[in-house]
């Protein structure tokens, strides 16, 4: 197993109290596999990724409990110096907004080359040559001429390619992509996702794709973890979850997106609002919005039930997953 997150808890201390952003997340990724983490804003999907990468703002953030095993080693027990050597070299992150993630006053060549200078101790000249190679690899036209350009001289899609190039620079075994195409137009989004998938195959990397877009997930993921209020409410192989969701939240999400292939009637809307992380509802966090909620849901936090064991394990955090599955 490439990466295993076990029972991770992350809290943020705010003026109004402690916000429990991540409440016991467990997931794993193997080499060459794509895990999609799906959730709305505030569901804890990005915070989990930040904890894995070790870029959580501490304080106000705090990892309250849990383990993050990367190639068998618990990252949370490593010294900062050791983590730094892993970060960027063996696991890398692609951010949503390339314009704010890139440094506006440095050329893209300098930013790409920095990876080789810092981690591999290359000279500036060699690292510049590697930067051009990388830009070629992510299909940026006229890489040799553009290596001295600044981020603002590139279009949105090209900037996201530079982000991908930077993440791939040292051929990491794990890539975390946090909403990599959300800021892009559909035609460009398709280009970028294609590129990412191609490079992943080539390098046999594990990929964690964080997104709120059920369409993107269906296109590329092998398995999905759906998050709500800092917990994974359902985890399953991609085909099964779309066919028959085993959690009412997943079902609600799937029903609430309009379809491209038909006009359809009134959309199903999940009632209410996402929960306040300072005061997560007792029992199942989804119960105030759930059409299937019963007294049990308000009292007992549902454990992760095994829906199927083999060939691929599938879990749901709903007391009534059987009903949901067959609804």
């Amino acid at each position, binding site marked *: 197993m490439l990466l295993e997150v076990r029972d991770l808890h992350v809290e943020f201390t705010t003026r109004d109290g402690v916000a429990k952003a991540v409440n016991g997340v467990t997931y794993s990724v193997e080499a060459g596999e794509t895990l999609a983490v799906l959730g*709305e*804003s505030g569901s804890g999907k990005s915070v989990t990724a930040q904890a894995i990468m070790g870029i959580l703002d501490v304080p106000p953030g705090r990892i309250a409990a849990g383990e993050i095993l990367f190639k068998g080693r618990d990252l949370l027990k490593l010294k900062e110096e050791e983590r730094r050597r892993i970060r960027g070299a063996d696991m890398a992150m692609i951010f949503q907004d390339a314009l704010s993630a890139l440094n506006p006053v440095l050329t893209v060549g300098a930013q790409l080359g920095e990876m080789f200078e810092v981690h591999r101790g290359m000279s500036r000249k060699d690292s510049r040559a590697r930067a051009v190679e990388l830009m070629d690899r992510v299909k940026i036209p006229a890489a040799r001429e553009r290596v001295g350009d600044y981020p603002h001289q590139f*279009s*949105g*899609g*090209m900037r996201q390619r530079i982000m991908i190039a930077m993440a791939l620079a040292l051929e990491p075994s794990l890539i975390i992509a946090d909403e990599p195409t959300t800021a892009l*137009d*559909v*035609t*460009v*989004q*398709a*280009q970028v*996702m*294609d590129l990412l998938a191609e490079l992943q195959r080539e390098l046999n990397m594990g990929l964690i794709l964080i997104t*709120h*877009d*059920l*369409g*993107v*997930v*269906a*296109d590329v*993921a092998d398995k999905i973890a759906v998050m709500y209020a800092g917990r994974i409410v359902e985890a399953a192989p*991609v*085909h099964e979850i*779309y066919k028959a969701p085993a959690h009412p939240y997943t079902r*609600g*999400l*799937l029903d*609430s*997106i*309009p*379809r*491209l*292939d*038909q*006009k*359809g009637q*009134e*959309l*199903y*809307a*999940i*009632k209410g*609002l*996402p929960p306040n992380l300072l005061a997560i509802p007792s029992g199942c966090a989804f119960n105030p919005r759930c059409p299937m909620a019963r007294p049990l849901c308000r009292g007992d936090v549902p454990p992760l039930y095994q829906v199927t064991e083999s060939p691929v394990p599938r879990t749901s955090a709903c007391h009534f997953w059987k009903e949901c599955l067959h609804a």
Partner: protein
Amino acid sequence: MPEAILEVTDLVKHYPLTQGVLFKRQIGAVKAVDGVSFALGAGETLGIVGESGCGKSTVARMLVNLERPTAGAITYKGEDITKLSGRALKAVRRNIQMVFQDPYTSLNPRMTVGDIIGEPYEIHPEVAPKGDRRRKVQELLDVVGLNPEYINRYPHQFSGGQRQRIGIARGLALRPEVIVADEPVSALDVSVQAQVVNLLERLQSEFSLSYVFIAHDLSIVRHISDRVGVMYLGKIVEIGTDTQIYDHPTHPYTQALLSAVPVPDPEARLHRERIILTGDVPSPADPPSGCRFRTRCWKAQERCVVEVPPLEVPPEFRLSLTPASHPSACHFAAEKQVVPPSPPAA
């Protein structure tokens, strides 16, 4: 189509590019909108889709007269509103209102919800007498599904979806006939998006509104629209009913756009043809000659370089009654199914 309430003819908006400080010389123009025509029927929803920079928001801003067109006419009930000023303009503005994209920046953080929704009444006092306004605002809050007691709260006390409801209530305050909604749900979470889309649909039938619905999300546009126009680089390239555009597109750009939309169905991965366009949208300051899409089009030929394709029903479909018979600005328009037909509803 029902009788047109709003008609747009050859709308053009060029933003001048200047050089020099004291003696500004015009060295070119960003052709944000370059000849757009369409009609909006009463009670109808016209969707406009396109990628960023295609000019769809500029069209929206011109429709509500926030921006004056360089050329062209916008006719509302037989009157060209681009020529109006003063009192006559004010009267028209009452009837064409806008809902903005970003509920975080389109509400003044220092005003209470009551003041925000009530502000249109300050400008058009004839709609509601002073003593009546508070009640009217509370009614509006109720209509958009917010608690009328929230009238004294500030925008930051609301979530994104609730704020968008406030923006919608403000748009409704003057009982307009046309609402121009510019990406009204794209800043919202999926589960909240559906709530707001449903609200917009309910309000449309309740107040017999006509919508111009601008968005980049093709699925949502199909869901809400009766007719859809596809824009590319300042021009409409294809326009028709939702079935005509989504199930029988004839313009290569529409086909590419539709095929690129991620569909929430993993089975579709296997038997779905995807057209991946190369390159980026060219700059609207220097659009390609002839057909603007030709630089990214796989069908482009010599003719596309010299001849601008008009937006009309392609000759080969002109006499047929197929759904492919709708205006499409391509010399080589041909039908191509890119959205796999849906399986029978489960």
